[in-house]
Structure formats: C-alpha cells, structure tokens
C-alpha cells in the first residue's frame, strides 16, 4: 500500500515526465473518469429532456398543486385536494406501516431468536422451522398469500370474529379495541414535563445526600413514585396547560413572516459557515506544537471538497430550487400551527381514551374515535412484512447472542445468576452491539419493502405516486420524490443506528 503522495521536495533530480509522475497519473485518471461519468450523465439527462419536450411533458414540480382527483383507500386524507397532499398522505401511510411493522417484527423476532437459543428441543425446532420457512419464501408471495387468505374471509357482521363486539375478523379487515390519545394528551404530557424538571432536582438532591452520607436513600424507588404521583395529578389537571397552544401559534406567526430572501441568506450562511468551521477544525487537528503538519493531497482534497459542497448548497438554494426557502417557511409554519392545535382541551378532557370497534352497514366506521382497524390491504402487507422480517431479526438476535464469548455466560452462571438473569444482565447487553447494525438494516429493508403495497393496493407513497404519474405523465418528477423520500428514511435510520452504536461503545469503555 503506497501511502498517499505528499509534496516532496527533491534537490538533485528533475521532475519526471508527466506520464510517469505518480501524483499526476493518480489525479489525472480520477479527473478523467469523473469527467467521463459527468459527461455521460449530462448527455443522458439532456436526451431525456429532449424526448420529454417532444412529448410535451415539462419537467417541473408545478403539478404538485394541481387537483388530484383520486381517492386513497385509507390514511390521513382519503380525498386529497392536491397531488402534493395525496403524496403526503401516501408517505404517512408508508411511515405508519413501517413504524408499526418495525415494532411488531422486532418483538416477534427477538422472541423467536431467543427460542432458537433455548435449551428446550421443541422450542429450538419450532423456532428454526419458523425462520427457515419464512425467510426462504419471497415477501411478495407472502403478502399476496395473506391478501388471498384475508379476502376469502366471510362478510363483516356483528359476530364475525373471535370475540363478539371486541375482535372482528372479516374480508373488510381486522378491528380490535384501541387506546388512543384524546384531547388532553399533549397538555398532560406538557404538564408531566414540568413535573419532570422538579423530579430531576429532587433526584439530584437525594443523590448528593446519598453520596455524602452513605446508605441507601432508595432514589430509584422514590423518583418512580414521584412520577406516578405526577401522572396521577396531571391526569385531571391537564387543562391548566391549554394556554401552551397559543405559544406555538405565536411561533408559527413569527416563522411564517420571515421574508424569503432572509431565509435564503440564513440557509446560505449555514452552509458556508458549516464548511468554514469544518475546514478550520480540520486544520486545527493537523496543527502541532511544531506548527502545521505536512498536509497530504488527501487532506487538500477533503478541504476542497468541503468548499465545493458549500458552493453547491448555495447554488441549490439560490438557483436550482429557489422555492426551498418558501417551502421551509410554509411547512415550518404549518408544523407549529399543527402543534398549537393539539392544545386547548377543555375541562374534563382526558389524555387517553379507549374505544371498541364500531360497524355500520357491513363495514367499519372509518372516521372518528373507533377501534383499531386494519383494512385487508394494510393487514396483508403488514403480516407479510412483519413475519418475513421477523425471521431475519431472529437470526440476527441469535447470531448476536452467539457472538458473545461463552465465557461470559459461564461466568454469570458461576456467580449464581439464573439463565434468564444471565441473558438479561450479561449476554444481551453485549450482544446488542453486534445486533444493532444489521438490525438497522432490517428496519430499512422493511421500510423499503412497504413499496410492495402496490401489489395489494395499499395507498403507500409508491402506489399513490404511480396513480399520479399515470394521470399526468410526470414520471421523472415522481421518481425524484420517491428517491428523496426513501433516501431520507435510510439516512435517518443509519444516523440513529450510528448514534446508538457510538453510545454503546462509550458505555463499553
């Protein structure tokens, strides 16, 4: 491995000719390849532009505000008034199924993975059959099978289901009672937060006392009791926080009144500032008591790259998508208004409420407080994804536990922990580090696999996008939205996984 070439000062010999100069060759080849790739890309894009122009399809995002004229099967808005709103509904649907799916798949996966490690022969076998069956059948086939099974169930009547009035199971879907956030929830949460600050101080006081005087002051127990007490007090008292909503409304007003140019300037300043700070930090890290160390050309490249990135960001903000700032302003205002609307519950409003499923005319009531209903579309996608993914999660959990050296559980057994205790206190915390990265990957896979919704007609972002471009031919633009959405999901997930990993590493040390 030849290390990167640094500027070398040579006294005696002349520079070698360029075709033998390693530095020049190295950079020359890279730049040529980069240029070729950019050229090919530009060519293809311009070709697409010409072709689209010929067909009279403009490439822009103005259609976002056009009326959608489509109906979604379910979601926050089933009759969206604009195409953008329809896509937004689809995105929420995607995230909804992904979020619940991740949760349930993890629970099942951990259970099955641990069962595979059980000393019980039958548990081991049943769990391995589960894993080996489910992960070897394509998830699409599983989803379609669930769809076929669910749609062949009986009609929805008062007694279709396992438990009359409470659990319904029919070709219209599945419905169970649910607990939901009622009007007072956010007020309650806010009040709890206020109490929490107080509890934190009490805790600190107790801790200091314990450190000084010794003895057990039951800190954990006391603070838990305090939390319970706070929750109980806040339960009926939540309406006293209804004024919080007006703060958010005020913020929304301020945010909404920011001029566009100012926002652009702020964004540019952030981009350039980030680059400058990064470069300065970088140089700082290369500085030694003896002065600035030799910078390799890799170092130079990094700094140049940071600069170019800032430049591109500025270009993007001002020229490529000038609408970005107004988008940020509008959506920020909407967001704070949305938060504001969550407050203002009157006297007697409860934080949580529960409802049984309600039927009308052979279908589930779709709106308002009712049971937790899964349409057949949602349910088949959900079951397919969850069972499929859980089989992979089970393998990851098992692998992670097996990766912990056997000496650890032996040592735990030696100090007298039971198998369950040793698993919980000794093995799992260590296995967690091995498990985390591939687990994050599975979460991502599940999220991406929600796109198979299109096979059963669940209104996720891909299905909605497809019905939109079938209407207006804006295929390229819809692809752009899909890509941005899924990349954002990926980036967020890997960010979270990385943060967790870093924390775990620090704990480890």
């Amino acid at each position, binding site marked *: 491995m030849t290390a990167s070439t640094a500027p070398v000062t040579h006294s005696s010999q002349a520079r*070698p000719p360029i075709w*033998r100069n*390693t530095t020049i060759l190295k950079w020359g080849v890279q730049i040529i390849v980069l240029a070729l790739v950019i050229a090919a890309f530009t060519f293809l894009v311009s070709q697409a532009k010409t072709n689209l122009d010929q067909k009279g399809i403009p490439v822009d995002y103005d259609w976002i505000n056009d009326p959608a004229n489509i109906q979604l099967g379910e979601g926050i808005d089933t009759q969206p008034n604009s195409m953008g709103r329809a896509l937004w509904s689809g995105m929420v649907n995607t995230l909804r199924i992904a979020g619940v799916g991740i949760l349930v798949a993890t629970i099942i996966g951990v259970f099955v993975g641990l069962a595979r490690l059980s000393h019980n022969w039958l548990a081991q076998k049943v769990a391995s059959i589960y894993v080996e069956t489910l992960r070897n059948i394509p998830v699409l086939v599983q989803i379609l099978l669930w769809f076929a099974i669910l749609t062949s169930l009986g009609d929805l009547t008062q007694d279709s289901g396992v438990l009359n009035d409470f659990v319904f199971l029919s070709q219209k879907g599945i419905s169970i009672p649910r607990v939901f956030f009622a009007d007072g929830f956010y007020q309650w949460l806010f009040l709890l937060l206020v109490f929490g600050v107080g509890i934190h101080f009490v805790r600190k006081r107790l801790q200091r006392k314990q450190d000084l005087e010794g003895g057990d002051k039951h800190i954990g127990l006391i603070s838990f009791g305090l939390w319970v007490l706070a929750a109980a007090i806040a339960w009926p008292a939540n309406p006293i926080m209804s004024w919080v909503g007006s703060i958010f409304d005020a913020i929304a007003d301020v945010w909404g009144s920011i001029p566009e140019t100012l926002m652009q300037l702020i964004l540019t300043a952030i981009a350039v500032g980030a680059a400058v700070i990064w470069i300065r930090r970088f140089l700082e890290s290369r500085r030694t008591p003896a002065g600035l160390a030799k910078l390799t050309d890799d170092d130079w490249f990094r700094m140049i790259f940071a600069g170019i990135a800032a430049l591109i960001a500025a270009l993007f903000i001002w020229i490529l998508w000038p609408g970005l700032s107004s988008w940020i302003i509008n959506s920020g205002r909407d967001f704070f208004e949305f938060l504001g609307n969550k407050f203002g519950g009157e006297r007697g409003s409860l934080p949580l409420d529960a409802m049984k499923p309600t039927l009308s005319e052979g279908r589930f009531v779709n709106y308002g407080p009712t049971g937790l209903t899964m349409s057949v579309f949602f349910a088949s996608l959900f079951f397919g994804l969850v069972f499929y993914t859980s089989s992979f999660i089970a393998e990851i959990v098992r692998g992670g536990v097996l990766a912990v050296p056997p000496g650890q559980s032996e040592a735990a057994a030696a100090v007298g922990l039971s198998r369950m205790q040793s698993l919980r206190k000794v093995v799992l915390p260590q296995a967690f580090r091995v498990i985390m990265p591939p687990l994050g990957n599975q979460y991502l896979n599940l999220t991406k696999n929600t796109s198979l919704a299109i096979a059963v007609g669940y209104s996720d972002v891909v299905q909605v996008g497809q019905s939109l471009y079938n209407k207006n031919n804006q295929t390229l633009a819809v692809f752009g939205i899909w890509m941005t959405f899924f990349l954002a999901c990926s980036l967020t997930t890997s960010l979270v996984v990385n943060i967790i990993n870093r924390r775990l590493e620090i704990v480890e040390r």
Partner: protein
Amino acid sequence: MSMSDANIALSAEMAARDNMITCRGVKKWFGDFQALTGVDLTVKDREVMVVLGPSGSGKSTLIRCINRLEVHQEGQIVVDGIELTNDLRNIDKIRSEVGMVFQQFNLFPHLTVLDNITLAPVWVRKKSKVEAEATAHELLERVGIPEQAAKYPGQLSGGQQQRVAIARSLAMEPKVMLFDEPTSALDPEMISEVLDVMKDLANGGMTMIVVTHEMGFAREVADRVVFMEAGNVVEINEPEAFFTNPVSDRTKLFLSQIL
C-alpha cells in the same frame, strides 16, 4: 554527530566500495507526528547494517521508506543510483531491486509455497514459468526446505514460513535485502534456523539492512551497527566498538537495559 561518526566508523576497505543506499535529511510525518527527523545514512555495497533502537524510534519507518512502502516527505533517498521520487519508473525499478522480509512473514495464504516464490519473477521480471520454478526449487534448497514446495503457507511452521518469505524475496534477485525484525514473531527454537539463512546471505555478499533485537547476530554478522532514537540516528559504529564502547549516553542506557 551522526555523519562524522559514521564516516569514522568505516574501515578503509569499506570506504573503497560504492554507495548502495544514501539517505540525506530524510523526514517523514504521520499526520502531525514526525517519525523521521532528518536521517542521514549511507550503506555501502555488500555491507550488512544492523539497526537497533527502542520501540517507536522509527526503525521500521526508515527501512519502509527505502522501498517506498512509506513515502518520505523531505530529503533524499537514493538506491543504487536511482532516486526515489514520484517517478513511476524509478519506483518500479527500486521495488524489484530491493527485497523485504517482514516480521509477520506476509506470505500469500491462497498460493502454494512454489507459487508464492514464482509469482513475482513471472509477472514482474517476466521470466518463464519453468525457469522461475527451477530457481524457486534452488532457493528452497538454499533456505533448507526443499520438500515443502507444494504446501500452503498455513501448513508450515513459523520458521519455515519466514524462510519461504526470504526465498520469495531472493527470487527477484534483489541487490539489497531489508529485514524488519524477521525473528520477532518466532518461537525461540525457530529463530536460529532463520538467522542461519541470513548469515549465509550476508557471507554471500548481499547488501542488507536488518532491524533486529538479536544482539548475537549483530555482533557476529554486522559490518556496522546503527542506533536510532526518536526518529534519528544517534550513533553508528562497528559492532565491537558499538557494544564495548558506546559513545552516547542514550546508547549506553539502551545497551544496559537490553544486555
């Protein structure tokens, strides 16, 4: 004091020979850490030079700069009249003229012993396979393991692996051999078999730079001994003088700890 000492230490017969390796003011940084702080050193043709020094003093870094596994940032290194610059041709030439033996052997685990040895002669020296294999067998004979040609490195003992590594380097017919602690990863009973091969090489007139902690070897074989400290040469002398009558305090301390 380094340069003048070095020249004093040269015997008259040595002084008459050509310079094989010349380092002038070689400096090397790793990020913000300076590993070589201006090394001056000459190695004569057919000379055996042993490099000593405490851990982290830059011994490995120095010899790795000589065949450009590391790139020095300032100063000049000339090997057999070729200067190490970013000239592709020079780098290629020097790589095939300078052999290197590593502490960890670094044999190619997916190739047989024979293929390990013939790979470079065939693809770099452009020899025919038959010729290369004949040479390889000769070399295996010379390092004392003629019967292991068909085995994979994983099937050999450490001492045998290191001898294969030496044979692999010799197959390129190098003018200079660099050894970076070739016996440090070996069990005591295998050390001597490797050292014997190296002694033979030295007696055969190979130019060698050897980083080692084997003082017996240094005394017996070295023409000169170099002592390094904190990225620079502190003392150069002929082995007898070096061990019995070290000049610098640092060398005295080092020798008192090690002997």
